[in-house]
């Protein structure tokens, strides 16, 4: 990059920062007024979305991609000039930015619920601009950031797109592709960018799965070059892949995707049985059930049977979390690979919606009761996501039981969350002990839960996406 363009870029950033500061001052005035009356969660979520659209998109570097930044300085509503302090439990290499320097990454995987919020806001408000921003993000990202050799994308657990340098980057030392959570926007992606979506799905099979016969893979795969290994095949990732290939099959009817699903399914049918003959839960039922609704009958039957067996194996553990309370997840403290009790409730809610299995219904109500009048323990650096799941658990319990106490708990937690995370700013902060915006801790999931409370409170007919993808 030459000096002239750098100077111009600096000037642009400065001008935008000044505008953002003025906007922030205005937003702070309105925020103070409206956060004190935080019953109107739609106002809070819209202001978040509007601010991201206005100030949180990539207008930096040579390519103005329009991607939503996954981290921002809340005091200037512009990119961070440093790598800010990490929220509790967040690993260094998972953050949206290069290690040890300013954090400027865009990672649609981490912003997935924000994209779902944008689509939902269009439905609620009738304003198409929200949908356009989300569509633009998906289109640009799929068309411009894909690895030419592996067709993998710079997103997920470790990778992102540097919005200033315009290159794919890693938060750590290695350019490793790994899903952060399931990608549930495939329907939209295939509608917007069918070729790129198909290429990614094929890349996932070719470059993430090391052994097509055994289904052997590692959750990490090199982004730049072919180099998959048969290593740590965390089972939930198999679910994420199956959840990708089923849409690819549905859209393309390319049999390679059935082969891919069958390969991983067979792997975990085998791996489910332990050396001592006992059986354990593996992939989980959700993506298997989802895929069963799209693939041919024979494979669908196998997937459904697999999912049902997963239920049998998982349910006792979930009951145990509530009965025995030993080694139960905490109510509020999240961390890498350590989620809260409410996130288990979100799994139950997702599975209940697929099956209407009463066992899951009962569990959701019990999880919701555990959060009655609860608030984070002293000195816990609670995440927005923890609040989001706790709130959505109450909403789910309300929908299942129609008992007002659950809606009232959801509203109480929602008000608390707005006061703690939004404060006097249009953007939520990353955690209770940090001050910047960073979606890795689930600001998007919290906002989605607030939309759920809004819809439940006002009996809105609009469907709100299920807050069940943080797993």
């Amino acid at each position, binding site marked *: 990059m030459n000096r002239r363009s750098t100077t111009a870029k600096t000037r642009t950033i400065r001008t935008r920062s000044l505008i953002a500061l003025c906007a922030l001052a205005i937003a702070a005035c309105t925020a103070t007024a409206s956060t004190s009356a935080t019953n109107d969660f739609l106002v809070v979520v819209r202001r978040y979305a509007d601010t991201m659209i206005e100030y949180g998109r990539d207008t930096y570097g040579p390519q103005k991609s329009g991607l939503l930044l996954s981290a921002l300085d809340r005091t200037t509503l512009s990119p961070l000039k*440093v790598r800010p302090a990490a929220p509790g439990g967040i690993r260094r290499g998972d953050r949206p930015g290069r290690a040890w320097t300013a954090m400027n990454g865009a990672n649609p995987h981490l912003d997935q619920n924000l994209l779902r919020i944008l689509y939902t806001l269009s439905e609620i408000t009738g304003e198409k601009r929200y949908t356009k921003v989300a569509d633009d993000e998906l289109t640009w990202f799929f068309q411009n950031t894909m690895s030419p050799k592996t067709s993998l994308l710079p997103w997920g657990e470790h990778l992102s797109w540097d919005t200033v340098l315009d290159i794919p980057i*890693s938060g750590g030392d290695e350019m490793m592709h790994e899903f952060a959570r399931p990608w549930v926007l495939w329907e939209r992606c295939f509608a917007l960018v069918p070729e790129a979506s198909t290429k990614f799905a094929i890349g996932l099979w070719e470059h993430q799965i090391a052994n097509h016969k055994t289904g052997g893979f590692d959750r990490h795969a090199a982004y730049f070059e072919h180099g998959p290994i048969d290593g740590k095949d965390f089972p939930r990732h198999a679910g994420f892949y199956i959840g990708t290939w089923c849409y690819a099959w549905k859209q393309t009817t390319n049999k390679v995707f059935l082969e891919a699903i069958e390969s991983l399914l067979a792997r975990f049918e085998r791996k489910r049985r332990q050396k001592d003959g006992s059986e354990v839960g593996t992939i989980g039922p959700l993506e298997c059930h989802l895929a069963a609704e799209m693939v041919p009958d024979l494979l669908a039957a196998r997937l459904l049977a697999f999912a049902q067996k997963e239920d049998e194996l998982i349910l006792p553990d979930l009951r145990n979390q509530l009965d025995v309370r030993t080694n139960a997840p905490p109510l509020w403290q999240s961390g890498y690979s350590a989620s809260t009790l409410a996130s288990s409730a979100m799994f139950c809610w997702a599975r209940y919606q697929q099956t209407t299995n009463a066992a899951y219904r009962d569990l959701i109500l019990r999880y919701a009761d555990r959060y009655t009048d609860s608030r984070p323990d*002293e000195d816990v650096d609670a995440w927005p996501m923890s609040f989001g799941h706790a709130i959505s658990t109450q909403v789910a319990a309300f929908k299942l039981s129609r008992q007002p106490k659950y809606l009232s708990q959801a509203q109480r937690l929602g008000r608390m969350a707005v006061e703690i995370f939004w404060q006097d700013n249009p953007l939520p902060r990353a955690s209770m002990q940090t*001050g910047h915006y960073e979606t890795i801790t689930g600001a998007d999931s919290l906002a989605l839960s607030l939309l759920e409370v809004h819809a439940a409170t006002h009996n809105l007919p609009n469907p709100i996406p299920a807050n069940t993808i943080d797993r």
Partner: protein
Amino acid sequence: MNKNYSSSRREEAHFKVRASLRRLLLAFVFSATCLQAATNALVAPVPVPSSPYLPRIYKYVDALLEDGASKTNLHKHQNWLRVLYTLTDLSTKAKYRDAADSALRVWLANVPSAEERIERPWMLWDRCFQIDRAASEQFALAVVKNQITNHPGFYLRACAAGYAHATNAAFLKAIETFVSGFKGPVPMSVAIDCDGVARLLPEPLASRLTALAENQSATLARNTATGMMYVSRYENTGRTAFREAAHAAANENLKSPTDLPPLTLGHSISLQLAAWRSTARQEHLDKARAFADFALTKYFDGAPQLEPGVDTLALSLVELHLHILYITAVRYPPNTLDR
């Protein structure tokens, strides 16, 4: 035949060696390819920032633990105990935790007298109950019986821990009686303890304590100790008024020289780190480092001593190290108990 056999075995052996060398070479090439595929970032990596603080703490603590006299007095230096637990979490070496556990046992065996002046709330109750439930409950009951209330936070936390771990209603009653004595606004230190213990207690007492915490008296001082109390209130409530007060104290502290007593120095480092977390302004992290660099030369160069305030300073240095390297798998204990 023997010759042939041995020759064939030799050839076989050579073949095996060649084969394994080939496999090794292939494995090397494959690994190198994978590594290259994984690491070929498009820009040069930024160097890892240096942090000399934790190695010095380890060295100091190791010497401290070898010194018999210091070891027997550790229980009087609560932040050293918290440092020890953190060092075990970071290093997985049990010796630090074991030393802290021994100190807790000594502490539990020495119930303070009614006249004893208490300086800080006790924040290690959970661990006390883990290692010796009966002694912990006895200690807490003795606190109630002796009416050791000259530090309200100490009293409240002893009772709340007793209730949380032993579900003994006597503790609830003691808290109820004690808090009914509060008329009007409470000092900020008491507010912190009321809000903290409220999370361990059932309703309606929990709400009563939270309401007490809300009714906190105004504090105008902007020194580091007060600043850390504002940090505690802010990080537990999210209230912007507390944030502004903590920021004001941190900004004032930016102008401070580094040559400070250990306790103030420890608070200064933790205050700057709290401001760094909250504002992402580099100057706060830089100032924390400046304080810490001075601390290393002044307080951690010589033979270890259990000097008052050095435990708080050591805790702040651990906190700083974790911030510099963005380590969050191990959490630093909040440096807010000197009040």
